[in-house]
């Protein structure tokens, strides 16, 4: 059952990714992107990672779709990019090379669910055994995020806050941003 769901959802993902590339209208592209991340988060649920699915659904389907729609509404005076034909070999080669590098890197990973893998051997053991005593937080994930990696979380919050202020400043302008479109034949 899970194998069937995985396979079909992955096929849907692939088809959606190609459709995103083929669609010429930007609004349709944004809708397809929302669909894509909905698919990814369903896949995360099937793969037994509900917290990741939560984040993906909230950020991918919710916030980023709305942000892209707002951006499209702000730059509606033209956004065609010049595309020269015959320059597609290099990007294709580059992405193939990067993909094969990633697959090459996967070879070194420990086996799925391996209890001897480094991730379960070092700090995780300490967190599980002494986390409640040291921090007093009953939830282990919260203890790690808010106490052991408190400065890291503070930095992340600062980054998100700065990005949010920037987005609000850009979108809150009374004047819409007018981008001059350049045509190919000029």
């Amino acid at each position, binding site marked *: 059952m899970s194998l069937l769901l995985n396979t079909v959802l992955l096929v849907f993902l692939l088809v959606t990714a190609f459709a995103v590339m083929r669609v010429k209208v930007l609004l349709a592209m944004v809708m397809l992107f*929302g669909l894509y991340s*909905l698919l990814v988060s369903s896949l995360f649920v099937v793969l037994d990672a509900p917290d990741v699915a939560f984040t993906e659904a909230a950020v991918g389907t919710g916030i980023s779709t709305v942000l892209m*729609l707002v951006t499209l509404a702000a730059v509606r005076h033209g956004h065609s990019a010049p595309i020269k034909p015959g320059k597609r070999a290099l990007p294709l080669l580059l992405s193939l090379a990067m993909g094969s590098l990633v697959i090459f890197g996967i070879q070194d990973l420990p086996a799925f669910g391996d209890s001897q893998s480094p991730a379960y051997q070092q700090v995780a053991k300490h967190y599980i055994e002494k986390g409640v005593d040291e921090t007093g937080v009953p939830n282990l994930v919260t203890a790690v995020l808010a106490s052991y990696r408190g400065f890291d979380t503070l930095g992340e919050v600062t980054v998100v806050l700065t990005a949010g202020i920037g987005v609000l400043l850009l979108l809150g302008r009374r004047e819409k941003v007018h981008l001059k479109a350049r045509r190919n034949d000029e």
Partner: protein
Amino acid sequence: MLYLVAGIAFLITMALALARAFVGPTVFDRILAVNMFGTKAVLLVALIAFFSGRADLLDIALLYSLLNFIGVVAALRLVERGRFYASTDHPETPEEEQQR
């Protein structure tokens, strides 16, 4: 067995919604297709929750349905306000916008 039949039925309806999102001649078709796909994703998550016996997955189904509603309302409001072309066979170029 019952779960398998229900899962296959969900996958087929998901495929149909995807097809409408890809070919949909107008933007509204696509928005409706995405909404329907979101509903099917909610059903799929609920199915997985009952299949695997994990009731906490139902929270995710609730979140999906909330997000689905908010996303569709936001998209429709922006389509209304941003004066996008509802038909997809017009390329969005400045010249065509001036002609309208």
